[in-house]
């Protein structure tokens, strides 16, 4: 294209967002800087690992006690048959959505900024889904049967699972989601593992990474299939992400309970999932980029863009709340109306207001650039949103259950120490896996960053200013 008039150019320069990569960086530099954390572990890694390991002990103990004594060790009861178990399940699975979403959807939309964070987010997805997957099994009264009765295999009982039950859909959705995410993640990882294999100095590492690289030679024939295959997986993952949380929302929407039985749930859950997912990415990425020294690839611009996404999804979630309240009033259904009122005025109202604060008010600050670009604030905000999304699930599950149709059967739920230790346990187990990831696997998709550098160079060379 022809070089534009000077003032226009100047104006565009002004509008130009900060670059995604520092100017003049070479592939070798990218390679070394991004793989450095694998060669030379950062200080304090072991300490963090030990802490996470200890916390995981909590999880083991909590689950152990539950297996030995029964669900009665939790606070669950009739009417509140589900509580922390399913809250945690939905919360974790929600967090698990950002990863695939970032890598898949942003890939489809050719959002260049995704490259620096997608690996990170995908890892988070897999680890979060592992946490989530614990609960469908362990929340049952007899997991030793659930573990295989939930799957359709020909048994000599001659009886099958019930495919009208959302819980069975859950089983399929969660297991599929986990498997596909894992394949997607690993596929993306192969070229980087090859890079690790070839760049690593120690023989042990070369053998180890060599085995996992499966013999990748960066051959044109590899790339030939890889490009389309990766794209297809992304294409599959995108609807998958949406379906998974829609199905999770069916656990509630398909039921008859006021506060659960709502058509808005699927979109509203998906938005919530992305919201919490991004919040978790922020919570992890902000400290990690400092810790790993990735400021040059995960730039201010990345963080700001993600904050924008959080603002948008936050607004969607708020809209969801708004709709719930509106429909409760508009439907004229006394039970629905009561549930909403009970949330705001009942014994659990403080949870409700915490939710409104964290999920509705906090993201609003991202209208201001100063908030979007302030590292401490975005970290705090992300944390608050994580809390907020957890309380949202508490509100949906507990406050809907504890006061339903017949006042005679109303009740209260109070968590026990086992509930808490299992919840904190999953947090630790998650961190544990994540630390392992940061130690042994490239936390940023090196190959894709190199590719990006070339594209950018190419564009710059072509003189196109448009990113």
């Amino acid at each position, binding site marked *: 294209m022809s070089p534009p008039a000077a003032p226009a150019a100047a104006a565009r320069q002004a509008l130009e967002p900060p670059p995604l990569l520092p100017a003049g960086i070479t592939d070798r530099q990218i390679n070394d800087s991004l793989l450095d954390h694998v060669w030379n572990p950062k200080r304090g890694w072991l300490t963090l690992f030990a802490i996470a390991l200890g916390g995981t002990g909590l999880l083991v103990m909590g689950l152990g006690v539950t297996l030995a004594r029964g669900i009665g060790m939790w606070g669950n009861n009739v009417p509140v048959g589900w509580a922390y178990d399913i809250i945690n399940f939905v919360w974790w699975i929600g967090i698990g959505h950002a990863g695939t979403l970032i890598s898949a959807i942003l890939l489809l939309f050719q959002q260049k900024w995704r490259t620096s964070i997608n690996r990170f987010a995908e890892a988070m997805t897999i680890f979060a889904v592992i946490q989530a997957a614990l609960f469908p099994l362990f929340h049952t009264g007899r997991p030793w049967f659930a573990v295989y009765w939930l799957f359709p295999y020909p048994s000599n009982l001659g009886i099958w699972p019930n495919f009208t039950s959302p819980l069975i859909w859950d089983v399929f959705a969660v297991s599929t989601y986990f498997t596909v995410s894992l394949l997607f993640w690993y596929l993306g990882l192969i070229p980087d593992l090859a890079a690790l294999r070839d760049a690593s100095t120690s023989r042990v590492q070369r053998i180890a990474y060599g085995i996992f690289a499966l013999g990748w030679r960066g051959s044109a024939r590899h790339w030939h299939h890889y490009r389309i295959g990766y794209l297809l997986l992304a294409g599959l993952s995108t609807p998958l992400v949406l379906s998974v949380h829609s199905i999770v929302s069916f656990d509630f929407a398909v039921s008859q309970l006021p506060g659960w039985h709502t058509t808005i749930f699927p979109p509203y859950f998906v938005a919530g999932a992305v919201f919490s997912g991004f919040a978790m990415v922020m919570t992890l990425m902000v400290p990690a980029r400092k810790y790993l020294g990735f400021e040059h690839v995960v730039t201010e611009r990345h963080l700001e863009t993600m904050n924008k996404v959080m603002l948008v999804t936050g607004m969607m979630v708020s809209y969801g709340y708004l709709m719930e309240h509106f429909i409760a009033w508009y439907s004229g259904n006394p039970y629905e109306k009561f549930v909403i009122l009970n949330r705001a005025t009942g014994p659990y109202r403080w949870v409700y207001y915490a939710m409104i604060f964290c999920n509705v008010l906090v993201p609003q600050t991202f209208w201001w650039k100063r908030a979007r670009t302030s590292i401490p604030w975005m970290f705090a905000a992300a944390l608050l949103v994580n809390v907020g999304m957890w309380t949202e699930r508490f509100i949906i599950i507990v406050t809907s259950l504890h006061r339903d149709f017949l006042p005679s059967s*109303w009740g209260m739920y109070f968590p026990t120490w086992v509930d808490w230790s299992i919840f904190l346990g999953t947090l630790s187990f998650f961190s544990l896996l994540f630390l392992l990831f940061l130690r042994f696997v490239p936390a940023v998709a090196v190959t894709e960053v190199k590719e990006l550098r070339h594209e950018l160079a190419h564009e710059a060379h072509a003189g196109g200013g448009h990113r």
Partner: protein
Amino acid sequence: MKTLPIYGQPPRAAGERPLWTSLDDLEAAARGPGGEFRHGAAEAPVALGRRSFMKLVGASAALAGLQACHPPREKIHPYVKHPPEGLPGQASHYATALSIDGYATGLVLTAVDGRPVKVEGNPAHPSSLGGVGVFEQAALLDLYDPGRAEGFRRRGGGLAFRTLLQEIAALSAAHAQDGGAALAFLLAPDASPLLADLRRRLQGRFPRARFRVWSPIAEDQAWEGARIAFGRALDATARLDRADVILALDADFLYGAGDALRLAREFARRREPGEAMNRLYVAEPALTVTGALADHRFRMRGSEVAGFARQVAGALGAVPAEAAMPPGREARAVAADLQRRRGRSLVLCGPRQPAAVHALCHAMNAALGNAGETLRYTAPVLGDARPDPRALADLAREIDAGSVRTLVVTAWNPVHAAPAGLDLGARLAKVENAIYLTLREDETSRRASWVLAASHPFESWGDGRARDGSVTLQQPLIAPLKESTTAVDLLAAFLGEGEKGAHEHLRALWKSRSGPDFELALARWLEQGLVPGSAEPAVSAPVKTEAVVAAARALPAAGPGMEIAFAPDYSVLDGRFAENAWLQELPDPVTKITWDNAASISPATARRLGLRNGQRVALSLPGRSLEAPVWIQPGHADEAVTLTLGYGRTAGGPVGKGVGVDAYRLRAADAPWFERGLSLAAAKGEHRFAVPQGSFSMEGRPIALDFTQEAWKRESHELDELRGAQPSLLQAVDYSKQENAWGMAIDLSKCVGCNACMVACQEENNVPVVGKVQVQKGRIMHWIRVDRYFQGPPEDPTVISQPLACVHCEVAPCEYVCPVNATVHSDEGLNEMVYNRCVGTRYCSNNCPYKVRRFNFLAWRGEVAPTEKMLVNPDVTVRARGVMEKCTYCVQRIERARIDARARGAKMGPVQTACQQACPAEAIVFGNLNDPRSRVSQAHRDPRRYDLLHTLGTRPRTAYLVRIRNPNPELG
């Protein structure tokens, strides 16, 4: 050998070897150490019990040792000699009776393999009519209670039964010297002719011995009232089937032992809308089961009831003005209403009211011409075994005077239940031979020098009389599980006839009172559970008005000040059921509190004193005080506190000990029921009650519906939107082709809220008890619950109770959410719960709008005593931990009926659910909806029928019939 006649199988005329030989063996066997059996011959029903228990143990052991790929093979222990009756695992029924505080209720017990597993009412028996109350049913749990007293001991030393008999024989011989001057008896009230006969003979042998009868909840003031009115003590038996208008003065006649079952039946039968519907006025301090059913309830303190009685009496002109009081608007209206139904009205007076009020009532009924119509006067069925309120005081005096060397106590736990201040415990310890016969170790057994374990009524021979005098022979269903004896044997031992055994004594007595063919007669009596024509004949007696007047005028005028009222507890009665976990966990029919008693006060009083629910308060009366938690009870009289008896036990087993507060510590000898001058001060601390019901308000939702007669005429069409089909995307399943379509109907007009259905279900379906803490956590397991709602002003609410079990929705929300098909529909429309398929996601419970599903959060049956295993109904699976359960419409009974019929190639007969069978009010109807003539389908067509939560389109198989009230327009 022959055996006990089976209920419903009239015995053939004699001819075979007499019934008794084997049972003598049985008796003798029971005598052996621990009821052990020496030879197989005696193992009629008992051995089976022991066997199946062995089997149970074996099975559990097998399960425990799960090695390799296969569990070890079970062992089968067949009989050595085949028992004559019944098939293995087949239920057989026996008629017997249970006496509570003197009066017998006829029962039919179901035994499987010789283990009694179910208690039901005897339809032929006048004081049961087929219904059964909570106490009679729960008595079965006492039978198997591992904590029961065992064996005999004197001053700590154990005695073999024969030694015991010899010792007592010696003792009585010694006392015979001086005609029993140092011998005293403190007996439980009992109408048993056998015991009466023994007492007579003892009196003969020990002319100077003192016989006293005592019970902490005696009805002595009723007899005293009769004595005032008629010059002699009489029993007054109500005939509610004939009564159009009933005035109950502090009379809670629909609940408890004695006549309540019959009265509930007769009352309920008159509660259908229309001309025949009766009207109930109740004047009482605390809200009671009866008060909850009142068409008009007048809230007043116990001491003010007398005044109200005098007002009504005055308005009726039953007594001259000086005895009456100027009637208020209410009294006038009530009187007018009673007046309109002369001869078909009834004035009832509760046992807590002073004799003079009873006398007034007799006068009123006489004036209304009710005597002989709605009221039947008979000589006291208890005869000389009528409890005497002064018994303990007199006894104490004698003990102090040192004139009691031997004291025989068969009365229940006098040390615990004695009035405050009277330290009977210390005194008992002073008696050289304090012989205490008891089912359990308790406060009294601690102080008595001789403690004899008592056999459970279901283990022992005896007899009893119903409230109307009808005699029932009490036959054992199983040999004593613990080495123990009976009151009969104990008294007989003092006659030196201990060896004969209760059974021989019984035979001897009744042989003398029967016609020619005694054996056949006896067999028939046992089979029917009734001695025909043994009811007490009615007598007519003129009222001595001047005596009534004098008594009435002597009544103290109601003064100001706080008042405390004591009442028998709905769950533990006077405390004798405190060790019964079923009853402890049974929600109080009014307050819904489990595992506790409380100081009930009215909302207004709570407001005045600034008290919250559960707050601890110090109740003090002159010289006595007690700390108790407050329960704010809508409908309670202001400025009064009601405290129920029987809690706060300091001795006894793990169940009752330390539960609730001991009201006896406040109860004075001279004011057993009401006392003035109570001061109530907030104390430190909060008490957490275990109340399974979440809220007592319907939140304006159409849940338990009631109409007044008037309103019903106008607004009956309002129900149309609460029944009938609803638009749905699912096409309904057609059940009309099936042989049966099971359904239920519950008539809220009839339901008295007595909880009988709950215990029946617990017994039939092996429903576990979870304990107070778990109830607080919301994990109570009852398959059927009775919801109690209050409407209107909290001071004077109208009350409605609604039994609720699984309603077996045709469009069941629980079913489609179950991932493993563990709950599905049967072709006859049952909502089936398959325990062994359930993995316990609890999704079904979450999605159940009625919240009738129950989850085994923990292993509720973790450690059960071997004897408790014998209680299990073998037809119902014992649910494992982590499994959902719920009402099955007693599917085991349905299948049993189907198989029994079809195996004979016959059509299937009607089926009764346990709750329906127990219900004294006939409020629950179950049956086949495909049979248009069945009672249930008639009920489903009733204009009063509606579906609970109909708007959800669940199409429940259990329909409700709205409650109709019949208020007096003049008071409207």
